[in-house]
């Protein structure tokens, strides 16, 4: 006769809930799941000033990005989104493209929704899952050709490549060969896109615990109370530092520097371009009027063969945008001294670009047109 059923103790503790008690616990947990994010937003101060942009240290904080989109929806008429070129690496926030556009209009019309380091494959995920508030707006969507400058940047390599914002890209299909995250991590990433609380937890970790897990943070701060670290004040909102150093700028602006290491990927086979196209469609499906700004890439660093390939690429992109009736502007390269590196302009460069945009007929009719429905 088995001794097991009758005599085996249940456990060495009293934590045993009945079905009804589990239901109560489940309801309480679900309530927390929905209430905590809402209560958190009430408690945590978020008052972006003029020309606000996502703090650099919080570039992976998609919960905050979603919150910012929601705020910007009520404050701005036109959104400008893209990678670090829009975000404004190397310049202060009032000298970014959106900042310069606001200077021209003398009105805080343009919102900087750029995110440093975001490439088209990740941008698609960002706007899909965290940018739902970008709807029924005019959107300037920037395309940086740098993401097609090699098969590696285009995410086509087989060898593992650690790229930016991996949690935003497709986890299963379409498959990205160079993305080698384990199955478990991918499932976790997919689930987090649909449940708010884990994103809030990530926001808390990034904002208040230097992107560390709280247990790891306590190893670094053994005598501090983790609850006290949560001040409900976003630490970097007021402070806005220029990213990139003066030395970096000087190096990349050397006269006569030519680079022939670019292996441009054509749009027909480009993964990043296909993601960008889907992003346009996604925005349009949400009722947005989309205006694409292409580059301008620093052609002054390219040599003969690479320059020709880039110009063909740019022509191809323009043709595809035109064929799909997408309003766009592909400005000519800025003067060499107005670039910091391959794609980032200086403050003066952004100012010139803003003026060029305002002079562009397509931009005026599609984005500045006050009579849009």
């Amino acid at each position: 006769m088995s001794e097991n059923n009758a005599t085996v103790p249940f456990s060495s503790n009293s934590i045993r809930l009945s079905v009804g008690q589990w239901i109560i616990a489940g309801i309480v947990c679900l309530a927390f799941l929905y209430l905590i994010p809402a209560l958190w937003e009430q408690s945590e101060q978020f008052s972006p000033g003029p020309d606000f942009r996502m703090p650099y240290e919080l570039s992976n904080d998609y919960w905050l990005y979603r919150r910012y989109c929601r705020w910007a929806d009520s404050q701005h008429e036109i959104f400008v989104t893209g990678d670090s070129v829009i975000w404004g690496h190397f310049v202060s926030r009032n000298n970014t493209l959106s900042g310069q556009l606001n200077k021209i209009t003398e009105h805080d019309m343009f919102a900087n929704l750029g995110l440093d380091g975001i490439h088209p494959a990740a941008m698609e995920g960002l706007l899909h899952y965290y940018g739902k508030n970008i709807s029924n707006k005019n959107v300037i969507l920037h395309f940086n050709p740098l993401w097609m400058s090699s098969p590696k940047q285009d995410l086509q390599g087989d060898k593992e490549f650690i790229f930016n914002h991996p949690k935003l890209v497709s986890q299963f299909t379409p498959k990205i060969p160079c993305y080698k995250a384990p199955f478990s991590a991918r499932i976790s990433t997919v689930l987090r896109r649909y449940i708010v609380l884990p994103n809030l937890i990530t926001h808390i970790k990034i904002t208040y615990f230097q992107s560390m897990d709280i247990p790891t943070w306590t190893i670094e701060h053994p005598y501090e109370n983790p609850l006290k670290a949560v001040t409900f004040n976003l630490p970097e909102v007021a402070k806005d530092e220029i990213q990139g150093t003066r030395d970096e700028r000087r190096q990349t602006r050397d006269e006569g520097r030519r680079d022939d290491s670019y292996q441009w990927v054509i749009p027909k086979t480009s993964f990043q371009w296909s993601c960008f196209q889907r992003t346009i469609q996604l925005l349009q499906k949400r009722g947005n009027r989309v205006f694409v700004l292409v580059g301008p890439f620093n052609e002054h660093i390219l040599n003969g063969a690479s320059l020709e390939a880039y110009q063909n690429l740019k022509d191809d992109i323009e043709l595809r945008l035109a064929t799909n009736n997408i309003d766009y502007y592909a400005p000519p390269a800025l003067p060499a001294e107005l670039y910091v590196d391959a794609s980032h302009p200086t403050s003066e460069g952004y100012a010139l670009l803003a003026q060029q945009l305002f002079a562009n007929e397509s931009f005026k009719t599609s984005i500045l047109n006050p009579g849009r429905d």
Partner: protein
Amino acid sequence: MLFQSWPFVIFLLIVYPIYLVLKRTRFGIFWLLAASYFFYGWINPLYPILIIYVTTIDYFTVARMEKSSHRKMWLIVSVVNNVGLLGFFKYAGFITDNLNALLMSLKIPYEIAPPGFLLPVGISFYIFQSMSYTIDFYRGNITREKSFIKYAAFVSFFPRLLMGPIERAKNFLPQLHKVPDVSWSDIADGLSLFIVGLFKKIALADFLKLYVVRVYDNPEQFQSPSLILATFLFAWQIYFDFSGYTDMARGVARMMGFRLRLNFNNPYLATGLSDFWHRWHISLSSWFRDYVYIPLGGNRRGTFNTYRNIFLTMIISGLWHAGLFSGATLTFVIWGVVHTFGLFLTREMERTEFYKKKVPKLVKQLFVFCFVGFAWIFFRADSINDAWLIIKRIFTSGFSNPYCPVLALVLIFAVWFYQFMYESRIKRLLELKLVRITIVVLMIFYLAVFAPSSEQAFIYMRF
């Protein structure tokens, strides 16, 4: 696959509903077996071959034992096969390392090549489980299991496959024979066990590991307070890690209608070393008692033989823990020796009326914990040299700020206090509905907020 991973969740979401449907049919046992082999094969596709081999040999040796007059010969076949397999996988590297060390010390310029294979996860557990069947049959304690499929399911039952508990055939095979009832209570109980196990593993064990690793990986850089605290934290880490797994295993089994034995019973509340071994890894210590200690004579042949039998049993236990590709293989043997001498020294003392009635319970518990904690140094240290260095530095290196997270100590104290209350007269407070529900909600909340983001393997998976 780890219990606390998404692949396991998906696995269970597929296996469990189909199991509930099939369990009343003859396909139920096949589904259970297939799921178990899939679970094991997920780690390495070759592993199921190994477990099928062990299962087949033991099934057929018992079948031969039943018909043959040379029962002992078939028992020896089974034992030699199982121990040989364990020895081959577990000790080939251990033996090679130590032979090479011996050759080096004798200045012989020859090196034996290392075996170059890894210890299959869980092999120590299911081999012991299978061996218990053959030995119990030989002793006449059980009847032969006629169904190979049921026997295979007994050996490979996936919730307990990787780290136990080591079930006995007489307890588990009858459960496989009858259609398991799975009531809503079973599901509720299973969830209760699982959530406690998950909390122990993720919130506690994986947290404590961060500090333990920092200190034990570089003990020469730390002073006495850090080394003491790291040892203290490790004692709790290994308890949470191992008992956490067991709780999750029991929880999953419970949700399927199976009852697995309790494997940890608040071991740090033990009031003596013997008591400790009745509370820690109960399925393994009882296995050694029934299949090593008692066959050697137990305590029936005088004091000297009793101590000899204790010594041999603990050494074998230490050897069981000594694994392949572990730099600390000998340290586990020393760990066993330390416990042996501890048992020697305390066995008589624990029987005295003075100890039983005069020494306060808390003092006894503290003494046992300190001893067990000391022994854990050998279990955790990366080498014998590191173990001795840690012990030496604990007593000689002076004081410096240990920088041990206060939160870790608070959590340990909270758990200890809970256990203390559980075994006291005020246990009833813990059984209040509100208290139980609150604790579960807090555990879930803590897991959601504080859990580290990466999955950590279990300590005992390497045995």
